């Protein structure tokens, strides 16, 4: 192969390689473009009020955030997700048996959020709850904590 043919073929190959990588980069860019950069949704970390707003015993259900706030005298605060881990339906906490029941496919979660029945693949999430400086409880849905996590106030 002489210089000329080499370069002829070389340019072609380089061109093809550039074209292929260009298409690849474009596809990646399109993919990234489709990933939302901001969310027009309630923030994942939010304040839910002062500890005094929550009673002992039965949990409070916060509709907008889809969370259950538990307050126990000895153990303090805990926040459970009300979104079924199966397909995203909203679970209901029954005071009578202290369990979470999902209306969609009949999953049942125990008091600790663990799956006791039904198709749910994993336990309900428990979210970190902290006391902000202004004395309000702050829940961060980005931080999943073990079900034993408690905030003492």
């Amino acid at each position, binding site marked *: 192969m002489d210089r000329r043919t080499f370069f002829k073929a070389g340019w072609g190959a380089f061109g093809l390689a550039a074209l292929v990588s260009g298409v690849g980069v474009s596809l990646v860019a399109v993919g990234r473009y489709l990933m*939302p950069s901001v969310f*027009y949704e309630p923030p994942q970390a939010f304040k839910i009020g002062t500890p005094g707003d929550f009673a002992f015993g039965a949990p409070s259900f916060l509709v907008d955030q889809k969370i259950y706030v538990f307050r126990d005298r000895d153990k303090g605060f805990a926040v459970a997700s009300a979104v079924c881990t*199966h*397909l995203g339906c909203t679970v209901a906490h029954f005071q009578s048996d202290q369990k979470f029941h999902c*209306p969609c*496919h009949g999953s049942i979660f125990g008091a600790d959020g663990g799956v006791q029945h039904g198709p749910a693949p994993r336990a309900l999430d428990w979210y970190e709850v902290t006391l902000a400086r202004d004395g309000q409880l702050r829940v961060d849905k980005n931080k999943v904590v073990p079900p034993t996590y408690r905030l003492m106030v």
Partner: protein
Amino acid sequence: MNIFREIYQSIVRRDPLSTDKGKTELVFLNVWLHIHPAKVKKEHMKFRHTFYLGFISFFLLLILITTGIALMVYYRPYPAAAYQDMKDLQFVIYMGPFLRGMHRWAAHGMVACVFLHMCRVFYTGSYKKPRQFNWVIGVVLLLLTLGMSFTGYLLPWDQLAYWAITVGTNIGSYAPLVGGMLKEVLLGGHSVGEGALIRFYVLHVAVLPLLVVLFTVVHFWRVRKDGGLSRPVWKLKAPKTAPLVQIGGTAEAVPLAVQAASTEKTYGLMEVVTGKPIFETVTPEEDDDAVFSYPYAFVREGITLMATVTTIMSMAIFLRAPLEELANPAKTPNPAKAPWYFLGLQELVSHSALLGGVVAPALMVIALLVVPYIDRNPSRRPRDRKWAIWLFTAFVVVNLVLIVIGTFFRGPGWALVPPWVHVTGGAE
């Protein structure tokens, strides 16, 4: 009067239809009709062989595109307006309920017809060589049809739409590795909201229709190129030893290719190239079976089109497309059900999310895609392919049973409730 004659002749340039040349030119000189051959074999057009399901699916697609464009005029894809626009379509827009009804029933009909079309092609063994790849394109079209229906489901923004899509996209999120990202890209967020609505809208009115049209074109093209519609099994003749033909080159020069002339092929005029005459195609004994497409094929297609249109129009007039309450993210209806054609999937998911929601459907799709390549049996006769027929029948029955269970036998809490037992919604 000559000017009118001139205008007519400038538009219609073919010979009169009373002549054979005219009948041929009607097909070849018309961009819309030239997907047809000039002549068809009668046996290819046997209704009992294909039930015209492919035609019906295509005509339903035409109805969907037409009514869909009409509906777009009044539809605004954001949550505050979408539901109100549906109400407007229902109550004040001229023929709104009719258009929406046609769109809805045509959509459901298309899912059903495309599926039945696939069953027909399987049972007649029409996916076999040389049509393997067209089967693959057909499976892609089936998936695209499901995608069209699914994305259209969210647009009314009622409770049914909202929760069907919530359940549906959560099924998608079980896909390994990309699941979470897939859900986020599809929804434009973490839950169904205004981001999801606009994305589904774009998919529904631009991306997926474009893909469906493109793949349909390829699908049709290949039907022609692979030898036209497959002929009924009972008309199959013993394979003849096909004469070898040369493509390209003169008699003395080296030919570009040498291949067997198919006995099942009809060839168009555009395949007439300079040089050697084209292959021997029509054998004398088959000749009486071949007729001009005009009017033999066209009248049959016309009847199919009109039957499809009248059926859908009657359904639109007499069956109202439902619209539930405004979407309420805080309140999950019990039970929350996906669209009927996904209820089989949902039924699987209710047993195991990963196995039923991802593994099983993925295996099904892969199995469908590779069917023509693993089925090496060259025979199309049912008695030669019992295994294939048994397996496919099992596949169809399992799907139907799951859908029937999901649709009619699942009550609140996804508990098994037969349809004749009335269950009132549980206390909150």
